[in-house]
């Protein structure tokens, strides 16, 4: 197995590909959190998003790899409990299976919870597509004393059944072999027709024969279509209009209805469930272990009515404290390097090639100051992503939803909406997509509106600069206060929206809580990297471009003496009066905030560029390259030591605050002169709230098909940001703090 590509699957390209290379298409279906994405990652070498909570995958993603000389295209799908979808991401899964007809379906079954998973298997089998069942998470099933007789299961279902442990790569070779075998000889591995009882079967037969006479038979699996028509599935009836096709559904189900005195949907569901139940009884053997699971013991504390929310808040505080402490030495190191040796090298190289003076300034004051100021925070961002990955992998994510359910009810949402919000701490963009898991479209819209209040990784650099300048003694707590401010404001704003835009009762809340699991170190690293890397890519692409643009805007009209008179300076001066009442009515702040609309980390980039050229007092002795290199190395080692030390000194002031100030005056020093602690806090609050970045705007547009929701977000956030900053600044002044 070698190369893989990830892209969204498009019908046409898929057909073309199959014609050319005869790739086998495998669609992966199963219950949420059964390990579908983990299996694909293990066999195709992809790095699809994995997490220990239901609803991680919300889009179909495909990967291509080779096995046994055949190309296999494997398609990851969102998890679903049945083929009657309730949420957007479940529709994606169902539509794929029905309309794109993969060559083979890989049905991933959570072996610890056989009966419920088989309920989906039974429905998948109705599609009549060759199927292989993976009994995944077999390790945990065995630990609980469950044994599953796969031979009996294979006989009963007529398809191959392979026990697997995706996280340990056990059974995957067997699985791949079976997939190939089935693809080579599909007719031998078509799932059996399970008998749903005479009444249902005869009605279905009647419809199937009718369907066989129409072109519909080409488009839909006939048995499945017959069942859906009998159930009166609204989506299917909408798609094919049975009356127009000459199908007499009511005649077919007439007898069924009178005989059972119930609606057909329930009769069908019961029939399927009876199959799942029967299968489970035949193949599963349990030895009761009697002792209470660890998960339940943890939940008793974590989900406690009184302790739940304090525990959540404490965990958050701990995360932010650690994020700050662990990453700060590295951030300081990077910042010293970009201001020192790296800058010197760039100047030397440009000098060597005799580049004109202005290009030197463009590179050092523009690109290096701009991109550099952002890159400095890469360690912080990665530390944050690490903790979010841990939260996801451990299973606490779903608990946070449980604990916050009551608070969310006050804003007409339920706990599940809290998951996209928590994901928003990493990046708001995937958080917007994660709203797909919500059953109710109104919930989805309201949740998406509140997501931008969740402080994303891109905002961290701004906080860190300002917190470092004014509050380094309580860095973790101040950082935490900003995140909590986001949550609290989301609740307040939510209440307002509920009273105006989204009237109506809170919808039902139902969600599965997975067992706690210990994520492996390797998978933590991989997924931290996957989350963090786009910040790096962003720095190398559009933050770079914006830095260059800003440099020009700061230096045009050409030869402008004072940056205040540059184009950017002038725009900043126009906006500044608006910011005056909230404590930072200077053009530098105004200009930085404008540029931050593209991405919030650009706020510090622009500040870096604006403040960089203030003449330095000390003239450094030119150092040799090797001296520089040594300095880079040794200071990095020190940073690593400091970081490690900080992990252990959980509370209290970190050990390193004393020595950093002397060296790097720069941005921090200027900020200390320009702001007071109070106006600094007002400023970071403003940055937290003021508007979603461009990429979030695009994501919102894409999810809802209209700019309406972004428009609303824009207006309310601007108002909120200004209002909150005003309250902080003037409230603080009145109380006489930090003025």
């Amino acid at each position, binding site marked *: 197995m070698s190369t893989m590509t990830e892209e969204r699957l498009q019908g046409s390209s898929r057909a073309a590909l199959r014609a050319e290379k005869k790739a086998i298409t495998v669609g992966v279906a199963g219950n949420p959190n059964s390990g579908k994405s983990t299996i694909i990652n293990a066999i195709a070498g992809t790095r699809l998003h994995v997490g220990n909570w239901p609803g991680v995958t919300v889009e179909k993603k495909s990967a291509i790899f080779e096995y046994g000389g055949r190309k296999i295209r494997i398609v990851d799908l969102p998890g679903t409990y049945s083929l009657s979808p309730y949420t957007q991401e479940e529709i994606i899964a169902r539509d794929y299976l029905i309309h794109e007809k993969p060559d083979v379906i890989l049905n991933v079954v959570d072996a610890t919870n056989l*009966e419920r998973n088989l309920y989906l298997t039974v429905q998948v089998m109705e599609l009549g597509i060759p199927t292989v069942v993976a009994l995944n998470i077999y390790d945990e099933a065995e630990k609980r004393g469950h044994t599953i007789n796969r031979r009996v299961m294979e006989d009963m279902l007529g398809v191959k059944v392979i026990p697997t442990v995706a996280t340990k790569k056990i059974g995957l070779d067997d699985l791949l072999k079976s997939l190939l075998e089935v693809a080579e000889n599909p007719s031998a591995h078509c799932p059996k027709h399970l008998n749903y009882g005479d009444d249902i079967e005869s009605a279905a037969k009647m419809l199937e024969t009718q369907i066989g006479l129409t072109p519909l038979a080409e488009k839909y699996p006939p048995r499945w279509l017959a069942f859906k028509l009998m159930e009166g599935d609204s989506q299917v009836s909408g798609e094919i209009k049975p009356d127009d096709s000459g199908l007499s559904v009511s005649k077919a189900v007439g007898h069924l209805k009178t005989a059972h005195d119930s609606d057909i949907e329930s009769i069908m569901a019961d029939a399927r469930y009876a199959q799942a139940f029967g299968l489970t009884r035949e193949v599963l053997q349990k030895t009761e272990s009697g002792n209470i699971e660890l998960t339940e013991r943890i939940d008793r504390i974590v989900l406690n009515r009184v302790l739940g929310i304090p525990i959540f808040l404490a965990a958050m505080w701990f995360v932010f404290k650690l994020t700050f402490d662990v990453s700060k030495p590295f951030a300081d190191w990077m910042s010293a390097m970009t201001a020192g040796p790296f800058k010197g090298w760039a100047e030397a190289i440009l000098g060597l090639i005799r580049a004109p003076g202005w290009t030197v300034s463009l590179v050092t004051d523009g690109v290096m100051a701009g991109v550099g100021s952002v890159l400095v925070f890469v360690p912080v961002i990665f530390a944050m992503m690490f903790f979010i990955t841990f939260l996801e992998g451990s299973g606490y994510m779903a608990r946070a939803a449980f604990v916050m359910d009551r608070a969310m009810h006050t804003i007409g949402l339920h706990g599940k909406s809290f998951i996209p919000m928590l994901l928003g701490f990493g990046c708001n963009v995937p958080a917007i997509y994660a709203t797909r898991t919500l*059953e109710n*479209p109104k919930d989805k819209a309201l949740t998406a509106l509140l997501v931008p209040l969740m402080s994303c990784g891109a905002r961290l650099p701004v906080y860190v600069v300002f917190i470092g300048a004014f509050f380094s003694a309580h860095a973790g707590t101040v950082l935490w206060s900003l995140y909590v401010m986001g949550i609290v404001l989301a609740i307040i704003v939510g209440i307002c929206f509920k009273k105006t835009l989204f009237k109506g009762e809170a919808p039902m809340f*139902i969600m*599965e809580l997975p067992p706690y699991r210990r994520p492996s170190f390797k998978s933590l690293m991989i997924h931290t990297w996957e989350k963090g890397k786009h910040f790096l890519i962003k720095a190398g692409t559009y933050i770079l471009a914006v830095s260059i643009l800003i440099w020009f805007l700061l230096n045009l009209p050409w030869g402008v003496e004072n940056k205040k008179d540059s184009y950017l300076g002038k725009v900043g001066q126009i906006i500044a009066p608006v910011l005056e009442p909230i404590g930072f009515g200077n053009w530098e702040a105004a200009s930085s905030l404008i540029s931050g609309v593209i991405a919030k980390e650009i706020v510090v980039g622009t500040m870096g560029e604006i403040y960089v050229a203030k003449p330095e007092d000390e003239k450094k002795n030119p150092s040799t390259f090797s001296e520089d290199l040594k300095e880079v190395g040794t200071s990095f080692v020190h940073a690593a030591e400091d970081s490690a030390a900080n992990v252990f000194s959980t509370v209290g002031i970190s050990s390193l605050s004393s020595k950093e100030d002397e060296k790097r005056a720069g941005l921090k020093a200027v900020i200390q002169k320009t702001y007071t602690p109070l106006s600094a806090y007002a400023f970071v609050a403003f940055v937290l709230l003021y508007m979603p970045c461009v990429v979030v705007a695009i994501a919102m547009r894409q999810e809802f098909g209209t700019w309406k929701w972004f428009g609303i977000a824009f207006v309310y956030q601007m108002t909120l940001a200004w209002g909150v900053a005003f309250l902080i600044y003037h409230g603080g002044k009145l109380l006489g703090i930090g003025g």
Partner: protein
Amino acid sequence: MLPLGLLVSGEQAEIMEIKGCKGAHSLDLEKERPGDEQGRIEDMGIRVGKSVQMLNNGGRGPLLLKVDESRIAMGRGMAMKIMVRRKG
């Protein structure tokens, strides 16, 4: 018979009836909210005849059930629409 929401933590019961609204659900933002609550919870394995154990019922807020091998968190409103019979 009593509503599921009144079971105390640790109690076991059998589900007798599910009264949640049933009906076509729609995923269209402009339309009313989806109605088929019953279908949704049945798909997740909560069905008439199943044994459930109440793992966490704090008296308000959501509650946590154990059904077969899965732990399911459920809003209180829904839990009051599910009728159960206590088991010894």
